[in-house]
C-alpha cells in the first residue's frame, strides 16, 4: 500500500508531467489563459489518460511482447490512442451526452497530446505492473490538471500586473512556467 502512496506522490508532484518532465507544453500554454478552459482540459486529460494508460499497457504486454515486436511500441501506441479517443468520443456522445457536452472540444484535442503518450511510455519503461500503471496514469493526469489549474490562476493574475511590453503574453507565461517548475523541484528530495 505504501508503495502506491509513494507512486502517487511521485507522479503528481516529483515527476509532474508538465513541470518536471516538460511534456504536453502546447495545451499547457494554449488552454491556461482562462480558468474555465483549464478545468475543462484537466478533466478531459484525466479521463483519456487513465483509459490510454490501461489499454496501451495491455497492448504492450499481451501483444507486442508476445510477438517480439516491442520496437513497434511508438507507432502502435499512437495508433491505439488515436482510435481510443475517437471511440470514447462516440461512446460518450451516445451514452453520456452530458459529459460529452462538458468535455466539448477538449476530447479530440488530446488525440495527439504528448503528455498522454509520454505517460504511457513511462509506464512501460518503468516496468510497472497493471495496477501500478493504472494508478500512475491517473496520478500523472491529476498532476497535469493541478499544474494547469495553478498556472491558469497565475496567468489570470498576471493580467493585472504591469508587464514590460516585450515580455507580454506568452513570454511572461514561459518565464512564469519556469519559476513554478523550479518550485516543483523542491519535491525532488521527497521520494
Amino acid at each position: 500500500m505504501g508503495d502506491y502512496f509513494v507512486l502517487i506522490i511521485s507522479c503528481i508532484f516529483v515527476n509532474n508531467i508538465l513541470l518536471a518532465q516538460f511534456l504536453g507544453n502546447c495545451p499547457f500554454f494554449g488552454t491556461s489563459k482562462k480558468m474555465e478552459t483549464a478545468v475543462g482540459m484537466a478533466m478531459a486529460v484525466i479521463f483519456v489518460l487513465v483509459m490510454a494508460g490501461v489499454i496501451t499497457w495491455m497492448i504492450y504486454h499481451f501483444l507486442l511482447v508476445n510477438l517480439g515486436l516491442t520496437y513497434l511500441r511508438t507507432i502502435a501506441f499512437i495508433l491505439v490512442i488515436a482510435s481510443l479517443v475517437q471511440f470514447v468520443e462516440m461512446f460518450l456522445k451516445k451514452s453520456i451526452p452530458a459529459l460529452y457536452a462538458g468535455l466539448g472540444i477538449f476530447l479530440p484535442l488530446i488525440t495527439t497530446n504528448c503528455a498522454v503518450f509520454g505517460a504511457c511510455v513511462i509506464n512501460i519503461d518503468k516496468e510497472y505492473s497493471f495496477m501500478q500503471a493504472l494508478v500512475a496514469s491517473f496520478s500523472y493526469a491529476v498532476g497535469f490538471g493541478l499544474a494547469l489549474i495553478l498556472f491558469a490562476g497565475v496567468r489570470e493574475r498576471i493580467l493585472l500586473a504591469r508587464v514590460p511590453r516585450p515580455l507580454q503574453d506568452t513570454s511572461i507565461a514561459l518565464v512564469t512556467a519556469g519559476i513554478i517548475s523550479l518550485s516543483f523541484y523542491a519535491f525532488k528530495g521527497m521520494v
Partner: protein
Amino acid sequence: MFEPVFISVMALMSIGAICGLVLSVASKVFYVYEDPRIAEVEYFLSGANCGGCGYAGCSAAAVAVVNGQAPPSVCIVAGMESAIAIAEVMGVDPGSAEPLMSKNECSGGNRADDHFLYNGVNTCQALAALHGGQRICSIGCLGQGDCIRACHFNAVHMGPNGFPVVDETMCVGCGACEKACPKNIIRVRTMSERLLHFNQEDDALAPCQQTCPAEIDIPRYIRQIKEGDYAGAVHTIRERNPLLLTCGRVCPHPCEDMCRRGIEDEAVSINQLKRFVADYEMNSGQRLPIPCAPETDKRVAVIGGGPAGLSCAYFLRRLGHHVKILDMMPKLGGMTRYGIPEYRLPKEVLQWETDGILNLGIDFQGNVKLGEDYTVDSLREEGFDAIFLGVGAWKDYKLRAEGEDLDGCFTGIDFLTRFASHQQGDSPDDVAIGKKCVVIGGGNTAIDCVRTLIRLGADEVSIVYRRTRKEMPANMVEIEAAEHEGVQFHFLAAPVKAVSDEKGHVKQLEYLKMELGEPDASGRRRPVPIEGSETLMDIDMLITAIGQGPDVGFIEKEEAIKDLEITRWSTIEADPETLQTNIPYIFAAGDAQTGASLVVEAIGGGRRAARAIHLYLSDEAVTPVPNSLRKRHIPESLFESVNGIAPIKRTPMPEMPVEERIKCFDEADLVISETDALRESNRCLNCCRICYDKDSCAA
C-alpha cells in the same frame, strides 16, 4: 531476413485493421442522428478552428448554421464563396440571415472623474478588476480600448470623446469586442434583437427611459440631436416608436415628470425635441430608409389600425413577417385620426407617418369590421398564423341620466369621429352644432370636444365637471389652452338630466352642485351633492364625454373566440408581460387591453405584443422578458437632489396666437427652431451614461 519485416508490417496492419473495425462498428452502435447538413456545412468552412466567428471551432459553427443561429456567412476566413455554398446547402439566400452588428451602448457623456490614480496596465480588463474600474460612474466605458485591440477588422476606433466608436461598414459581427469588454457596454446584436429588447432591471437606464411606456432611449437621441445627427436621432426613436410625428405632438410626456434636471430646475423638454427631429425628417422631403430583417413565411393579421396596431405591425414587419392591417374605418390611424382633432395632429402629418409604415410592405384593408365583414376563423383559413387585436376603446360610456338621447345630444368619441370623418371627406354628413354647447367630463376627450366646438364657431362653450380643476384627468397644457381659447368651466357640478323642448330637442341641463368630501379609492376627494342645489342651464347642444371603453361585441359573433377572456371593465384579458390572451394565437394590446390610455402606452404595448408574436411564430416559448422592469423604476436611480445644476430656462412651446387659432383648424402648437432644439438638447444631463454631474464636469 525478411521475416521480421513481414511480421511487423502484418502486426501493424492487423492493429490498424482492428482499430478500424472497432471504430466502424462503434460508429454504427453509438450512432446519434445528426442533421446531415452539419457535415456538409462544415466541409465548406475553413477548418482553421480559429474561433473568429465566436463559436468553439468549425463544427460548432456548422451546428449553429444548421440551427439557424448563425448566418451562412459565419466564417470570417473562408469568405463569400463558402457563404454561397453553405447558403445552397441550407436552401437560403446567401447573406439573407440577419447580420450581427456591434454597437457601443455607451453613447457617452462627459468623462467622469477618476476614482483613484491608476498606474496599472492599460487594459479595461485589468482596470475593471480593481473595484469595477477607475471612473466614478460604475456603468460607463473605461476607455482603455480592449475592444479596439480585440477587433481583427479595424472596425472599432477610439472616438474623440474617449469612448470607442464602431464603423458599421467594417463590422462583421464576430463578437470579439463584446467578449473583450469587461463592462458589457459594447454589444453585438442583430437588429431584431435590438428591436425586441425591453427595459430590464440591470440595464443602464435614465429615469426618463424607465418611465416612457414605449421605452425610447431618450438620452441617446437627445445626444444625437446635440451632435447634429438628426437622422441618427430619428433612427434611435424608431427602434422603439414608429409614430414619432404623432407622439411628438400629442404625447403628455410622462418621461418629463421623472427628468433628473427637473429635481433642481425645469425638466428637459423631451417631447419637443422628439417633435423637432420628426418634423425635420418630414420637412427634409426624404424618408430615412428603415431596414427590415429577411422575410419569413409567417403571416399576421393586425385588427385595428390605431397606434397599437400600427406599432405591432411595424415591428413585426421589421422582424420579417408579413402583416396585414384590417380596420373598420377607411383610413389608418385609429383614434389618432378620428379622435384627436386636426389642430392637435394634422391629418396630413398623420398620413405621411402611416404611409411610411405601409411602405415597409404592410397590407392595409379599410372599411371592414370584425364580426361583420370577416371573422377570426376566416382569417385563420386565409392562412394567418397569429392575430393581433388592437381594436381600441371606441364605445362612449353612458351618463345614465334622463334625456341623454334627445336631439342635440352627442357622446364624445362619436362626435369627434363624425366630425373628423366629414372634415377629411370620408363621409358627406356634417355634424350640426349648437350655439350654446355644454360638454360633460374632465378628460382629454372632453377638452378635444370643446376646443373643436370653439373652432366651429359656437357662441358659448362650457365644460361641466363634477370635481375641481385639480382633479381633471386631462393634460394640464390642454386645460390651459382651452381656458385661453375662452371655454367656460363649471366645476363641482353633477348633471342630473337633460330637459327637452316641445320638439324633442335639448333645451336645458339640470345639475346638482357638489362639495368635496372624503378621499375615495383613487385618492381624489369624492364629490358629495349639496341637497336642494338643483340648477338649470340653458343649452342647445350636449356632449357627454365621461370616458370610453372597448367594444368587445365581436366575441359573441363567432364560435372560435367565444371563450376569449374579457375583464369586468370589458377590456380583453391578456398576460401583462406577453400580451397573449387565453387563445394562444391571439394577442391584444392598446386601449382594448388597458382601457382608454395614452398613445405612447399603446405603442409600447404593440411592440411588446410583437415580441410575443415573434416568439410564438418562431415556435419558441412565449415567456415574459427576464427581469422585466415594465414601468417600474430602479429605486437607486431616483435621486432626492442633484449637485451642480445651474438652472437654465426651458424652451417654451411656440404657439399660434389665440385669436388666430380659434378661427381655424390649423395646428395650434408649433415646432421649436433648430437653435432652440440645440440649446434644449444641451440641458439634458445624459443620465446613466457616463457622469451624473454634468455641469461641474463641463466646467
